[in-house]
């Protein structure tokens, strides 16, 4: 288990991580989400003893990471795939890790095969693609066959096969009872593999819940309804729920269920062409949870205001 208690990190006047308290439980894949600059990587770096917390603590299985004598055998982490000496071969990189933790060198060849690096492991890292570096970083994390795994954006640079492989790998680890914390900016990825999500924004905890709870509650359940009399239905719904016109003839309603909307339309004699719950995506839940916590906004390519002309 990974535990954080009041974890805080200041860089000068900037508070990157602000009083974070949560646990990452064994036997689950925990997704770690947040906008750019939210403090995800800094949090992981503090867990791994790379950065010193300004306040609070982070422990792995009840111990601070720096207190673990052979850390690779308890915790494996992929934090920054580019953080390797480019002039060293992948195999030598792993041999250094093995030697530093008293792991037999035969294990190096095992993890090389496990991540699919094969003969490329004997080449220097400077010739590796991003995907190969990711695989090498994952191999290093697996060297000591640890019970706790942290991955910062593990699917970056991986091809589809690699993405499917990492999904299965993480799922398998959790099913074996290991603790898995994985950050990603790809909501769809997290939705596919995570059992639980921790969402942070501006360094603060926004949500810490099972993924089903986030999907069903925190993001708000929505209903999509299509009708040729959308103005009439919009007026009828406006004082009972939040209504957004997504396209001409289509409304998205938050706060009322499909049966209530259908009954209301029937009572008013309005024709309904489509009425369905919008399948909740983690992306939507995430966006609604973090909309006030994004430091870097891009300009929408196609702003869509309710009823506004394009």
């Amino acid at each position, binding site marked *: 288990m990974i535990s954080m208690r009041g974890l805080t990190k200041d860089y000068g006047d900037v508070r990157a991580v602000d009083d974070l308290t949560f646990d990452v439980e064994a036997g689950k894949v925990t997704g770690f989400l947040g906008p750019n600059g939210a403090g995800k990587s800094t949090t992981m770096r503090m867990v791994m003893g790379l950065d*010193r917390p300004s306040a609070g603590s982070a422990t792995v299985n009840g111990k601070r990471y720096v207190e673990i*004598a*052979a850390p690779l055998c308890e915790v494996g982490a992929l*934090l920054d795939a580019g953080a*390797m000496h480019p002039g060293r071969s992948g195999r*030598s*990189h792993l*041999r250094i890790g093995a030697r*530093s933790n*008293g792991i037999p060198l035969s294990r190096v060849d095992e993890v090389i095969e496990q991540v699919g690096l094969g003969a490329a492991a004997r080449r220097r890292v400077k010739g590796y693609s991003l995907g190969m570096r990711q695989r090498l970083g994952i191999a290093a994390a697996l060297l000591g066959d640890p019970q706790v795994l942290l991955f910062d954006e593990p699917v970056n640079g991986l091809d589809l096969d690699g993405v499917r492989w990492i999904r299965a790998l993480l799922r398998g680890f959790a099913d074996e009872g290991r603790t898995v914390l994985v950050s990603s900016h790809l909501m769809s990825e997290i939705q596919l593999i995570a059992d639980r999500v921790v969402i942070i924004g501006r360094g603060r905890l926004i949500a810490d819940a099972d993924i089903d709870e986030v999907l069903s509650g925190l993001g708000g359940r929505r209903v999509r309804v299509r009708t040729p009399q959308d103005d009439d239905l919009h007026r009828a719904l406006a004082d009972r729920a939040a209504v957004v016109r997504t396209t001409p003839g289509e409304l998205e309603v938050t706060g009322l269920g499909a049966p209530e909307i259908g009954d209301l339309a029937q009572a008013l004699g309005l024709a309904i062409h489509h009425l369905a719950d919008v399948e909740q995506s983690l992306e939507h839940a995430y966006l609604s949870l973090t909309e006030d916590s994004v430091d870097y906004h891009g300009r929408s390519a196609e702003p869509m205001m309710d009823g506004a002309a394009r």
Partner: protein
Amino acid sequence: MSATTVLARSARAEWTRIWSVRSSWILAVVTAVAVVGLGTIIGIDSSDDPSGPPPDASAWDGGQLTGMFALFGILALSVVTSAADHGTGAIVPTLQWTPRRGVLLAARAGVVVATTTLLGVLLVAAASVVIWAFLPHLGLPVGDGAEILGGLALVYACGALLAVGLALVLRSTAGGLVTVIALVLVLPPLMAQLPYEWAVTLSSLMPGSSALFLIFGEGPSDDMTTTSARLTLAAWGVTALLAGGWRLMRTDANR
């Protein structure tokens, strides 16, 4: 698990870390060629010289003249191997694997200093043997060899400590190389040439002057002695390592 075991593992990892990149091999080979090559030139030159070396000289004395070349190689190798982790970002996996920074510092400084010092001493010894091969009448007495190589070992160890410390403080290969070259090679003779007493005194307190005095017996000030030069060099090495160790242990990994 004992601290000794953790330190031994880290030391083995440091050894692999040094010799698993080409730059270390290139620096070691270039240093070897320069030192043994200079020894060969000294041997050939002296054998052709009718006046020859002083009658009480041994081949070790000739070998000692190559000592400065070995020192440059040691400084470069120490900086490159100690700063590489920071320059490449590899400090992230390094500290994940050895999170006890005191252990990492001890292993890194110990292995780099021991390796480079041994390399320097062996190369000077090899240069001495080459000179002896050209001038067999000089002799290669064991007592002289132990004294000269022991003295050089101290110079090399202190120089390597200085280089490791600077590399850890600056966290940059280029910055480390420039600074160590300035302190050892550039600033001491430059300051000794200035027409001010304080500049000459300052020059005699620089690590390059101490190394020069201990290798060639010459320095910018007549007040220098073997003991004062050794203490000065040791003070530079220890201070630099303390500063580098403080930065490694007290600050974030690669900020």
